[in-house]
């Protein structure tokens, strides 16, 4: 009879709700599980195709593949190359895909496919050891020209970045001087830049990139220039002096390592084709969750069968919430507290209209048969047992008749919980005898109304999505139900019931 303070209770409920929302938000941010269903994310599917002519000898093909291209994450990687042994080798110098075969002759084609997810947060990995500028030896008269150009560039610049930009600008055809014409020929332009920068004491190298455009085939890698500014490698377009990696540029190869090595083959070449795909954000999160420690909190790692069971199970709290709300705040009378939820679960599997028809026909046939049972003077337990068997007969009968008449929906009757239906019939029947048909109608339609509401809430794709992918949101549902348990205000139905009190006011 002590009146306990309700403050700890409200604090507890608040903590529950806050924890639920916080964990869900955290998982949304960390794992990228979307709030909404049907959210799509772009993914680039890139296929590298290696062609070469076999010489009738053992062949070994080694292709450089990207390790951590800035602005992208690698989602999947696979190789298609019948008859070849395949492996991916990780080394200090980079990652390489290697195909091997004992005897190769004639034209050969090998494929390597990878999916890349655009992700602005992925930065370039810092280099393992600090790169140093390589000393370069020049012969006259190039040496003088180089010295001249470098001093021009360095005069107009203040940092390695601006120096690089200036140098590229000086080397462009429209402002070429005698010095540049002497040095530049078409093939060696990029190599020349790298050597000149190294000569100026700036570590520089080449990189190969792919311009991403949807549905392009037979693309070649485009060379880019990279310099080291003391912290990380910076990428420059050697034609426009533009700095940085544009969004649609995938750096396939960085560093001096070769792109393709073929041992035991001639005429080797590599070309790329690409495709922009969209993948459901949820699928993406599921694929990536395997690599993430947070995945422990989700259901994705369970076997599929258990997953679908949980999908159903996790909807139940929504139904319970609806029932609690309907009974506590609205004040709708139902027969059996949670019978509506179980009926709603059955509706989810049968869909509404066939489920409603099936349920009503089973219950009304059951009520007629129950009328006969009550005249048999049976004990309660055996009467209920007999009723369960009759309900099974009725459902089986309805299924068969429905099937013969060409309605497959007849089969869905079997989703209803037999024991619950038997008890519902029993309760309704007693209610009928004691309180009359009106009360049966009131409670029956109340139960069906709540069941339909629960069904509508549970069958929305969003509810299924949120409850399954964010199971922690059930803490919020729990908190709300606890709060409702403390609701001492008037029910909506009581405002109607107590209306005659107006005269006494």
């Amino acid at each position, binding site marked *: *009879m002590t*009146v306990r303070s309700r403050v700890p209770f409200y604090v507890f409920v608040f903590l529950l709700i806050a924890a639920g929302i916080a964990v869900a938000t955290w998982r949304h941010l960390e794992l990228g599980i979307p709030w909404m269903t049907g959210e799509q994310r772009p993914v680039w599917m890139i296929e590298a195709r290696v062609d070469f002519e076999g010489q009738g000898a053992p062949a070994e093909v080694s292709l450089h593949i990207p390790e951590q291209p800035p602005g992208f994450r690698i989602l999947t990687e696979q190789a298609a190359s019948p008859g070849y042994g395949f492996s991916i080798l990780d080394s200090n110098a980079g990652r390489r895909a290697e195909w091997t075969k004992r005897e190769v002759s004639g034209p050969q084609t090998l494929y390597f496919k990878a999916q890349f997810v655009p992700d602005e947060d992925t930065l370039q990995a810092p280099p393992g050891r600090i790169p140093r500028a390589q000393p370069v030896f020049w012969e006259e008269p190039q040496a003088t020209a180089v010295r001249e150009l470098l001093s021009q560039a360095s005069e107009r610049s203040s940092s390695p970045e601006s120096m690089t930009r200036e140098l590229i600008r000086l080397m462009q055809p429209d402002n070429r001087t005698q010095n540049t014409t002497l040095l530049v020929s078409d093939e060696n332009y990029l190599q020349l830049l790298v050597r000149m920068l190294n000569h100026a004491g700036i570590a520089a190298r080449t990189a190969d990139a792919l311009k991403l455009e949807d549905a392009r085939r037979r693309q070649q890698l485009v060379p880019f220039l990279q310099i080291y500014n003391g912290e990380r490698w910076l990428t420059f377009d050697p034609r426009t002096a533009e700095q940085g990696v544009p969004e649609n540029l995938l750096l396939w190869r960085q560093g001096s390592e070769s792109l393709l090595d073929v041992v035991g083959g001639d005429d080797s070449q590599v070309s790329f084709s690409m495709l922009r795909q969209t993948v459901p954000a949820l699928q993406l999160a599921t694929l990536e969750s395997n690599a993430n420690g947070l995945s422990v909190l989700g259901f994705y790692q369970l076997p599929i069968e258990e997953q679908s069971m949980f999908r159903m199970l996790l909807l139940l709290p929504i139904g319970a919430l609806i029932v609690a709300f309907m009974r*506590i705040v609205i*004040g709708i009378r139902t027969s059996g507290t949670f019978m509506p939820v179980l009926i709603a679960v059955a509706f989810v599997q049968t869909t509404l209209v066939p489920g409603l028809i099936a349920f009503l026909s089973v219950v009304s046939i059951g009520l007629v048969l129950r009328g006969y049972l009550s005249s048999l*003077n049976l*004990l*309660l*337990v055996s009467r209920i047992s007999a009723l369960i068997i009759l309900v099974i007969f009725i459902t089986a009968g309805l299924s068969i008749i429905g099937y013969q008449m060409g309605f497959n929906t007849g089969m869905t009757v079997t989703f209803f919980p037999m024991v619950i239906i038997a008890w519902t019939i029993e309760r309704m029947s*007693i209610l009928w005898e*004691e*309180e009359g048909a009106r009360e049966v109608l009131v409670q029956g339609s109340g139960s069906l109304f709540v069941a339909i509401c629960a069904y509508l809430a549970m069958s929305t794709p969003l509810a299924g999505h949120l409850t399954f992918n964010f199971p922690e949101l059930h803490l919020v549902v729990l908190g709300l139900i606890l709060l409702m*348990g*403390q*609701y*001492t*205000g*008037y*029910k909506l139905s*009581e*405002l*109607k*019931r*107590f*209306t*005659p*009190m*107006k*005269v*006494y*006011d």
Partner: protein
Amino acid sequence: MDWISPRRLKKLGMLNMNRRNVDYIARYNDRSSYPLVDNKLKTKLAVSEYGVKTPKLLQVVRQQHEISHFRDMAADLKGFAIKPAKGSGGKGITVITGRDGDDFVKASGARIPAAMLERHLTNILAGLYSLAGTPDVAIVENLVQSSPALARYSFQGVPDIRIVVFQGYPVMAMLRLATTASDGKANLHQGAVGVGLDIGSGKSLNAVQFNRPITLHPDTGLALENIGIDDWENMLEMAARCYEATGLGYMGVDLVVDANEGPLLLELNARPGLAIQMANGCGLLPRLNAIEDLKRPHFSPRERAQFAMESFARR
């Protein structure tokens, strides 16, 4: 549709279902006392020690085989009532008022054979009417001979008096009259008439049926304005005494007035309904608050009854 605003209900002090459950039943009624009121047999035994009279117990049927004794016992009885010990809301109560050859005559005048009564007993034992569907026992009680002064207002059935007792203080009372609609039962939600009674005098206030105010009994046509209950103070004291017997802080006490034996306790209810407020035309909350605010509660049932008569009388 006609609605009343929550603010007006609050002003009237109307107790609602959620508040009753959370603030009164859950707080003042100890769960361990529930079996005492949910089982009529236990109630009878418990209150008898506190000097509260109940209808005479004729037979207790506990086992299926004991049903065969029922026919012998009932052979020369004119009237009796069969009740499930754990029944609620008047469910499963059969009142027999007379005999017609081998058949029994119910209060409604319907004739039922002995075999049907035995089936009814079987149903009771199997737990059909008990609160949780658990096995039950059936009790057979002496038929209450309602005092003619009150009986004439009721259509069949015995009029009973519901008194809500809060922490041992009778706070509100009403007279419940059976109607054809209620099939001789005195339950308001089944269509019985509820007549509010002034706690101070035992005189009738307002009457309602199906939550609607009425002035005449729908079946007997008698005016419901000037009903008075005799021996009112003793009845209140009797109700107050049930608090000591059960320890339930918030309960409904159902009394009947027997022509020969005076006031008898029919049953106790740990979850009394809210319709009593409509029969009285006022809310329970002000009275409940007044008792919660008492600095020195009264110790004897008589003092509490007198306090209630002074404090809650209609002015």
